[in-house]
């Protein structure tokens, strides 16, 4: 039986104490398992030279799937470049997702169809696009909720400050979702800024929250509250999702050279996908049969990647 889950620390006590239904939780686990399979396979493919580059999202699956599920299918997403599990939630298959890292295209999916716009590699530029988009839709009397994903390091870029300020002044219906995985390549986030991301958003006039995003249930509830705020108030907000970057910035990043061995050892034991699978299994929300079926699905995704990219 699914227990009512409670929002984690830093949450504003809104009316999100209702239990998450079992089907939503199963769906979230499924996306996390498939995203993990794609991520693992892509890392292997890069290692063997079949992909030029891969940016792993291992350790951020709870943050990504929890938030993506909470914002719903109608919101239009302006991602950065590591939101692979969000892409999976939005129905993008592994081959389409990975194509740009094999040099075949700059975007392997149909952005309009999935309402998941192309990855942007110049950091924080998408923040201004998202705010402009929200303003534009409102002007055309077709208001849409806009979600902008961004990383912790990218919040230092001028465009992020400009976007938050603009969103506040325009009262744009935009939710900034900042995944703080603790690193901007080799620069730890405590060296990247003197005030927290959530505080800085506040400073510009945005409502903000900061949560540990290890568990998709907690993340889902917190992001749902954030989304409801934006939609009800028609005002911008920012939710900081604190996660762990298990691997390097990219597959070619020798992160052992700059990470403390103890910190790295602990990070490598961290697995939000395994943790959620165990949690749902123990609660009887999923069984062996269900897990086997998803494993098969993940296997298909891996095979498709091999077929498409392996030399």
């Amino acid at each position, binding site marked *: 039986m699914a227990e009512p889950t409670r929002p984690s620390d830093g949450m504003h006590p809104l009316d999100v104490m209702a239990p998450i239904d079992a089907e939503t939780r199963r769906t979230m686990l499924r996306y996390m398992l498939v995203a993990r399979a794609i991520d693992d396979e892509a890392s292997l493919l890069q290692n063997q030279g079949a992909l030029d580059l891969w940016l792993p999202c291992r350790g951020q699956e709870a943050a990504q799937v929890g938030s993506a599920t909470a914002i719903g299918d109608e919101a239009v997403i302006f991602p950065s470049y590591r939101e692979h599990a969000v892409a999976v939630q939005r129905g993008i298959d592994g081959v389409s997702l990975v194509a740009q890292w094999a040099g075949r295209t700059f975007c392997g999916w149909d952005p309009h169809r999935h309402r998941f716009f192309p990855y942007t590699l110049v950091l924080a*530029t998408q923040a201004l696009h998202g705010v402009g988009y929200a303003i534009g839709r409102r002007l055309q009397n077709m208001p849409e909720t806009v979600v902008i994903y961004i990383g912790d390091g990218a919040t230092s870029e001028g465009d992020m400050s400009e976007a938050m300020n603009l969103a506040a002044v325009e009262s744009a219906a935009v939710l900034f979702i900042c995944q703080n995985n603790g690193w901007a390549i080799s620069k730890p986030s405590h060296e990247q800024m003197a005030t927290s991301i959530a505080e800085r958003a506040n400073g510009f006039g945005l409502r903000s929250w900061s949560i540990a995003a290890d568990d998709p249930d907690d993340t889902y509830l917190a992001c749902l509250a954030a989304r409801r705020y934006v939609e009800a108030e028609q005002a911008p907000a920012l939710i900081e999702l604190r996660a762990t970057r298990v691997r390097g910035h990219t597959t070619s990043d020798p992160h052992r050279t700059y990470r403390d061995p103890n910190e790295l050892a602990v990070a490598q034991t961290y697995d939000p996908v395994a943790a959620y699978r165990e949690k749902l299994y123990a609660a009887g929300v999923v069984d062996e049969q269900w897990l086997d079926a998803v494993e098969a699905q993940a296997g298909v995704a891996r095979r498709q990647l091999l077929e498409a990219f392996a030399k």
Partner: protein
Amino acid sequence: MTMTRPMSLAESLNEALGELMEDDPSVVLIGQDIGRLGGVFRVTKGLLNRFGAGRVRDAILAESSIVGQAIGMALSGLKPVCEIQFDGFVYLAMNQIVTQAARMTTRWNDQIALNLVVRVPVGGGIRAVEHHSESNEALFAHIPGLHVAYPSCPADAAAMLKYSCALGSPVIFFEPKRLYWNRKQQPRLGSESDSPVGARIVRRGSDVTVVGFGALLEEVLMAADRLADRVDADVIDLRWIAPMDTDTVLESVARTGRLLVVHEAVKFGGIGAEVVATVAERCGHRLKAPPRRLAPPRQVYPPADYEDDYLIDVADIVSAIEEMCG
């Protein structure tokens, strides 16, 4: 001032913007001081009253935001026409222009049209202070994915602006600021170009091809006029820097055998280099004399007192033509 007189560039653009906004509700304007003030050059005068603050938006003081949000608006279905207040401030928007606007349709595998105009007052000759007299068209010409418009007169500017607004591809739209309130214009041939992005022959001649654009075209025509009794100049208004209509230039050089390119921007790495290289490659064998560029040396634009020495004037153009044809 109520008596009828020729339209200035500012008035012509103002009229064109009004017509664009009247005809298409998806056209919106965004820029610093364009609403309540009507723009520092009054190009957007009266438009806030006519169309309201939703469509004539006084921007926050941040150029990256102006272009960045305009990109988002374009993605949302609008046709934004942005204004950067002065050429010297466009650099703050370069990231959004070059890495985003210019590349957006490629990144989307041509699944979108990106309607975006960035209007930029350009050039000197008005005793402006530092950074307010730049000529940076070559920087943008070099970027694939950008159209670069550089009109030389009010009527053409209006036509080019209308074309740019719904083009579906980003346009950097330069407006020669020393023409904003100028009401005198050298007579020029009124023939329509074959293509909306074509160059235009504004004076027919047979002795030398003189290529120019923007405000300096006035001086070129004055020089051609002054020399009319001894040299017959074929004068071409490029109109668009990118894409560049080199065919019109080639056709002219094939007739005259001589090429002079005149521009206000620094000669080194300037647009003239592209014109001369193309002519050399494709009809070098028709040249009777080495092709020339007449443009300022590679120096920072000087303080106002030294501006007249720095800028190319009618006498400079006359000398250059005489030397080439002598």
